[in-house]
């Protein structure tokens, strides 16, 4: 059987088709000519006569060349020097890349499985982290004009406590003397034993100044918040959190006015706070209930007992710097008045937003660097190297269209796999850490 492929290829040479396309046309046309040749032999022609008759179909004119020239797309056959930039076709390259990626993934099911798992974990972890970042960093605090709110701490930096919890007497003096704030409220953690309603339960809560919720601009969902009359020793009223009201009282609106036994004493429920009302503080405590702080006279006189968290709202027009300066002046005055307790004790005003996100904000670049960018890069690198080592030779053999010269990464190694595994594990630990931090 004569080799018609050489004849056909010679007539296609000037068309400069892509090697793949040329190979297809040569194969198809040579099959046709071979059948014509066999048919001619069957009809009694000699081999030479049969060959001549068949070749006449393509040799007689440049018909084939003319017809195909109008149809087929030329590709640049100019070699690209290593390191030189070849002309790029954005959409053509994209299509080629997608086909290339799908082909490689289909050929390597194990690798595809690992890559998909890695990507799934990565996407899941990033989604979880983003939901936390969104809730903590991006959304505004759920208080009225949160930019005016600030935490006020004692500054005992010389003792290693730059943000120390103030004592009741200092707080009361601050509140009395300050002109920069419209209000100042104190909070103190306290645990309560709830009895008399189903199973006894230990609940975390806080004693708070009666003006706290008014200061924050958070009204009660049911009933009322505390009033000035509640902030006196011996007044036993309580505000329930939304979650406690749902869980222990079945969202019963009739809970208002009901008596609860807390730490063996009777408290009257005066209100239920809205969902997601969590107060800022030294630690993110998931408060279940609140009672008035109601300092007793002995407690109000304490300067050496530091256990309060103080939140204040700046007056409109007063800058943070001005508020800070005034608090330092007041602290210096108190240091002169009460040198036994207040020498070298200052005050520091921290914007509420900074107080809340302060611990997480430095992690943001780390989160971006570690979780978002690195693993996909490694996955992509691994995909590229795995694919290229397997396909490059085939692409060269068949002359894949528009083959782009790129730096060819090394073949994926065991260490690449280890790196991906390590990155995935880091994502999981990082996400778990963030979620744990957010939960507490």
């Amino acid at each position, binding site marked *: 059987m004569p080799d018609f492929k050489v004849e056909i290829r010679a007539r296609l040479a000037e068309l400069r088709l892509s090697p793949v396309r040329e190979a*297809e*046309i040569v194969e*198809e*046309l040579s*099959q*046709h*000519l071979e*059948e*014509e040749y066999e048919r001619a032999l069957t009809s009694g022609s000699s081999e030479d006569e049969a060959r001549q008759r068949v070749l006449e*179909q*393509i040799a*007689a*004119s440049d*018909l*084939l060349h003319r*017809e*195909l020239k*109008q*149809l*087929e797309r030329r590709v640049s056959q100019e070699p690209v020097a290593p390191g030189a930039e070849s002309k790029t076709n954005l959409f053509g390259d994209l299509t080629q890349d997608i086909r290339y990626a799908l082909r490689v993934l289909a050929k390597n099911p194990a690798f595809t499985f690992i890559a998909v798992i890695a990507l799934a974990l990565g996407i899941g972890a990033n989604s979880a982290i983003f939901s936390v970042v969104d809730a903590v960093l991006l959304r505004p605090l759920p208080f009225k004009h949160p930019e005016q709110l600030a935490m006020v701490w004692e500054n005992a930096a010389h003792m290693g406590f730059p943000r120390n919890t103030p004592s009741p007497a200092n707080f009361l003096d601050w509140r009395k003397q300050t002109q920069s704030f419209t209000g100042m409220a104190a909070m103190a953690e306290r645990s309560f034993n709830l009895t008399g309603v189903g199973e006894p339960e230990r609940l975390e809560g806080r004693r708070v100044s009666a003006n706290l919720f008014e200061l924050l601009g958070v009204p009660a969902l049911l009933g009322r918040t505390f009033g000035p009359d509640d902030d006196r020793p011996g007044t036993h009223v309580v505000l329930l959190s939304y979650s406690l009201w749902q869980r222990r009282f079945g969202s019963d609106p009739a809970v208002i006015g009901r008596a609860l036994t807390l730490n063996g004493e009777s408290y009257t429920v005066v209100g239920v706070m809205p969902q997601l009302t969590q107060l800022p503080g030294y630690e993110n405590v998931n408060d279940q209930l609140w009672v008035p702080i109601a300092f007793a006279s002995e407690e109000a006189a304490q300067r050496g007992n530091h256990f309060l968290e103080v939140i204040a709202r700046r007056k409109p027009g007063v800058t943070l710097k001005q508020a800070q300066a005034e608090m330092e002046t007041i602290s210096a005055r108190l240091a002169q008045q009460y040198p036994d307790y207040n020498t070298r004790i200052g005050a520091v005003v921290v914007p509420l937003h900074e107080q809340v996100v302060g611990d997480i904000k430095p992690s943001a670049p780390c989160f971006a660097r570690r979780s978002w960018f690195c693993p996909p890069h490694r996955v992509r690198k691994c995909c590229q190297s795995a694919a290229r080592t397997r396909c490059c030779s085939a692409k060269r053999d068949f002359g894949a269209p528009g083959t782009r010269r790129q730096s060819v990464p090394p073949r994926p190694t065991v260490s690449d796999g280890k790196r991906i595994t390590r990155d995935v594990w880091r994502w999981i630990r990082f996400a778990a850490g963030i979620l744990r931090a957010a939960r507490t």
Partner: protein
Amino acid sequence: MAMQYMASPVPDRELKKGSAELMILSLLEDRARHGYEIGQLIELRSRGAIRFNVASLYPLLYRLEKRNWIRGRWIEKAGQRRRRYYRLTASGKNVLSKQRAGWREFVEAINLITGIQHA
């Protein structure tokens, strides 16, 4: 479309040129066929009056494929080398239907004018 005619009477070159697409689409209506089979069927059914050579048949097939009227696919059957089979696409079916109707009207009009039908 260039054609080579082997039998007499030889149909006019231009006349056949306009019908080449219709012939190929018609042959692919029932089932997928490879190029050589299409060429053979045209020759057979025209009793040798019409014959495509390689240089004219395949560019025509590629043109129809490019228009998405037919689709070629390499198929490997047991004991045979792989071959490229062409089948009619949905778009090709529509075109075939329209070309048939148009051709029929054209032939009837020519017949009315030339009186061939009543001759």
